[in-house]
């Protein structure tokens, strides 16, 4: 695996980790209607965080060979296409964010103001996810390459 692939996997894992971490307070506040216990005040959570960061740095910095470049012309092309796909996904999600509430809430419906930043944040988080997935798909998920 080269650095671009590893960076995409790192982004994907971090995104999924953030979703899991954010799901807990979200469920607590909006569904269970109770204030969540602090996740980061526990010592094991901080240790787990530092282990994750240390393992990620080693994973990202390890090269296939000492002479391997950080990226080459094919990596550049793949990254450009991934940015394009991500950009298109932002427009599709923005359009969906405008149309879907109208169908759910009707012409005169209203949504709380604090939902809007969540929608924007969600769109850009999904765009980041799409960017990582687009990179991995173009590399064939890193597992289809031949060996020689």
């Amino acid at each position, binding site marked *: *695996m*080269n650095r671009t*692939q590893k960076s995409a996997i790192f982004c994907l894992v971090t995104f999924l980790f953030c979703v899991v971490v954010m799901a807990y307070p979200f469920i607590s506040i909006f569904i269970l209607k109770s204030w969540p216990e602090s996740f980061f005040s526990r010592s094991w959570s901080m240790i787990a965080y530092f282990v994750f960061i240390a393992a990620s740095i080693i994973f990202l910095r390890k090269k*296939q*060979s000492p*002479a*391997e*470049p950080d*990226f*080459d*012309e*094919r*990596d550049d092309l793949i990254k450009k296409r991934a940015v394009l796909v991500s950009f298109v996904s932002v427009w599709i999600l923005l359009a969906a964010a405008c149309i879907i509430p109208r169908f759910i809430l009707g012409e005169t419906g209203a949504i709380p103001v604090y939902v809007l930043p969540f929608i924007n944040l969600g769109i850009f988080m999904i765009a980041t996810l799409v960017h990582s997935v687009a990179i991995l798909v173009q*590399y064939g998920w890193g597992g289809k*390459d*031949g060996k*020689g």
Partner: protein
Amino acid sequence: MAKGKLNNQVRRLRFENGEMTQQKLADATGVTRQTIIAIESGKYAPSLPLAFRIARTFGVGVEEVFEYEGEE
């Protein structure tokens, strides 16, 4: 737009040059091993500078490594 296929002899030339590994060729040409794999399997057409670097590594002309198969 005319569509053609770029055939290459990279794999054969690697084996003819002392069974050179993909990693060694990648290091010699300044690209990653994944790019060499993609070129060999025909999934990626390299730029002209990279095509010349590959040919020079094998000590042959670029037309001996890459062959364009398309409409005249």
